């Protein structure tokens, strides 16, 4: 006897949506709408006071965006989700819901550059401080926890160095300290890893990347696992104390496993307003329909690329958790059994100059500041995504000047290789490059 609830691929196509409630439309309609009629004064009052569910105004929620929220929630195995205008706003909203001025976060040092800036430079303006810990330094996460620490944040596979954070172990540390573990799972998507199954309490995504897969739209999402008990200690007054904005509502008491998302929407969306446009939600939903198919191909192409690069005379080193000798290979096999994703970092012989020449001479691979497109992307982080960082921060983030970051796309493998051969050939010739 087994439950007949729908499984992953079915959920990617159907979760969150019933045609019968939408004029029979098989595809999700785009509610390009801002506001929703109240039945009467009593209905309006009830909606505003969270007595009933429903839409009021698209800054808070929108019917098309809601489908996306439920779909990602279903795929992640979460209780509730809140979609946002971008991945960055999902992270910001999460931290602003969790923390108050005077609070502290423990954060993995290998993160998307924008996230590093948020924790290092922007959050301190709001009185929220951060201690960075290297992703492999599991004990370091424990040591960095202070009495005012409100959570641990990290990317499972660090960007762009491909170092793994030991999520199951770090989650135990968070549990012992009575604080939630928040994972940015952009690079994995729920197809490769469902962090709630490994002890995470909250998950954030930039949906701009693999979830969408088409490079058309910005979006982010916060997903709640429903696993964290906010009432276990007195660290989370935002969740447990009466909230003046809703007549003394205690989110934890009333909403339990969905309290965090309810609070993030009721306060964060209301006051900060980074809502997702319905058209963008729809574009992302389109991408999610083929998530499994795409991720499979991303991963198989990535494995072939790792092999090709590892054996290439112009390549000094290759970093991918599947690569032979990668220090996290064993952990990766345990928590990422379907594949470790399609992000590869490699060092090109000849350093910074060779790197620049390579980038300028590949034609099929696109040189741009994104990852997770269906097309193959390349970038030289030291001169682009991470260029705001000084030398020391670069090093701490696991970056080097010869590093090229590669996001393997869905093209025919042979075509990518032919393109790379042109790049490597050009990289061997001397050329002029800016030198700061």
């Amino acid at each position, binding site marked *: 006897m087994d439950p007949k609830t729908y499984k992953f691929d079915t959920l990617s196509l159907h979760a969150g949506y019933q045609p019968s409630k939408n004029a029979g439309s098989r595809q999700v309609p785009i509610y390009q709408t801002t506001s929703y009629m109240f039945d009467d004064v009593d209905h309006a009052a009830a909606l505003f*006071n969270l007595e009933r569910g429903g839409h009021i105004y698209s800054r808070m929620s929108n019917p098309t965006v809601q489908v996306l929220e439920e779909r990602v929630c279903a795929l992640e195995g979460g209780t509730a989700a809140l979609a946002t205008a971008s991945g960055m706003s999902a992270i910001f909203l999460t931290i602003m819901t969790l923390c108050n001025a005077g609070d502290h976060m423990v954060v993995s040092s290998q993160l998307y550059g924008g996230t590093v800036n948020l924790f290092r430079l922007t959050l301190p303006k709001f009185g929220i401080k951060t201690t960075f810990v290297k992703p492999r330094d599991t004990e370091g996460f424990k040591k960095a926890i202070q009495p005012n620490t409100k959570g641990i944040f990290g990317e499972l596979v660090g960007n762009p160095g491909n170092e793994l954070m030991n999520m199951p172990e770090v989650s135990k540390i968070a549990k012992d300290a009575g604080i939630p573990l928040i994972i940015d799972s952009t690079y994995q998507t729920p197809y490769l890893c469902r962090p709630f199954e490994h002890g995470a309490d909250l998950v954030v995504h930039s949906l701009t990347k693999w979830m969408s897969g088409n490079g058309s739209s910005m979006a982010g999402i916060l997903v709640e696992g429903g696993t964290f008990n906010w009432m276990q200690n007195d660290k989370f007054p935002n969740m447990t104390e009466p909230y003046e904005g809703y007549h003394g509502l205690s989110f934890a008491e009333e909403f339990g496993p969905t309290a965090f998302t309810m609070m993030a929407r009721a306060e964060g969306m209301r006051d900060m307003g980074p809502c997702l446009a319905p058209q963008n939600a729809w574009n992302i939903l389109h991408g999610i329909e083929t998530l499994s198919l795409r991720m499979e191909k991303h991963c198989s192409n990535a494995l072939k690329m790792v092999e090709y690069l590892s054996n290439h005379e112009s390549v000094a080193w290759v970093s991918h958790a599947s690569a032979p000798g990668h220090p996290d290979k064993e952990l990766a096999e345990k928590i990422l059994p379907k594949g470790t994703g399609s992000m590869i970092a490699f060092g090109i012989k000849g350093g910074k100059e060779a790197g620049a020449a390579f980038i300028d001479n590949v034609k099929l691979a696109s040189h741009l500041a994104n990852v997770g497109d269906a097309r193959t992307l390349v970038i030289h982080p030291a001169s682009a995504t991470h260029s705001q960082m000084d030398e020391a921060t670069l090093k701490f983030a696991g970056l080097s000047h010869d590093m090229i970051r590669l996001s393997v796309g869905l093209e025919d493998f042979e075509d990518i290789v032919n393109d790379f051969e042109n790049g490597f050939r050009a990289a061997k010739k001397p050329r002029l490059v800016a030198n700061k």
Partner: protein
Amino acid sequence: MRFKVRGIDTFASTGGRPFDKNKPLMIFVHGSGLSHMVWVLQTRYFAFRGYSILAIDLPGHGLSSGESLKTIEEMGDWVGDVIDAVGCKEASLVGHSQGCLVTMECAKQHPEKIKTLTLMGGAGAIPLNPELLELAETSNTKAVDLMMDWAHGPAGHFGGHPVPGLYHLNVGSMLVQEKKEIKDTLGVDFRACDNYKNGFEAAKKLDLPTLCILGDADKMCPLKEGKKLADHIKGSEVHVINNCGHMMLLEEADQTLEILKSFIGKHYPLKK
């Protein structure tokens, strides 16, 4: 709100309003393995409209301490004690699933205290599939998965939560797993339901305004069982919600609230 019932630290949600024993009292009783949180889309509404609300956590459930009660009869009697414990004389009861058996028992044992009865997804008997019962009694979380599958209709399985962003199946599953050892909550509750044989007898004795809200796609307590129970209750009012499973209080929260509002307005109105 925390208070003592039979010396046990008990939690009940008051729907976001301070408890006031001078207002008409409504008590909401959750189903097997669940807690007060299933009622949020009904309780806050009534709490902000002049009623005193207690969405209780049965002993051993949710935020209440103590051990789970072992029989439906005991649970019914315990709900009667809740009314005394908060200094009230009477209450209107609302139950879901197992909570229907419990509230019927309470109304049967304490007819003087209970003014109206609302039964959501109820049946006269709730025999459990033996395999499901065993899974729950051994704290196997597959019991939760099966329960979520059977308890939800199309809204649960596909989606469309009344509260934007929430996902039915996983909310339900986390509510049940709030307590680590589900054998102590779900296991005990399922056994109590399976053992309870007095449903129809209790139903026949009821003599108060009774409302039955049923879902036509309910697999836990199928529509025909719900109707059979309603047939045993004198003058009961029956509403069937189409395309809806066992969790009508969440899956079709708006319709459920409208039906409840009009029933309570008629039979348990606020004093002028």
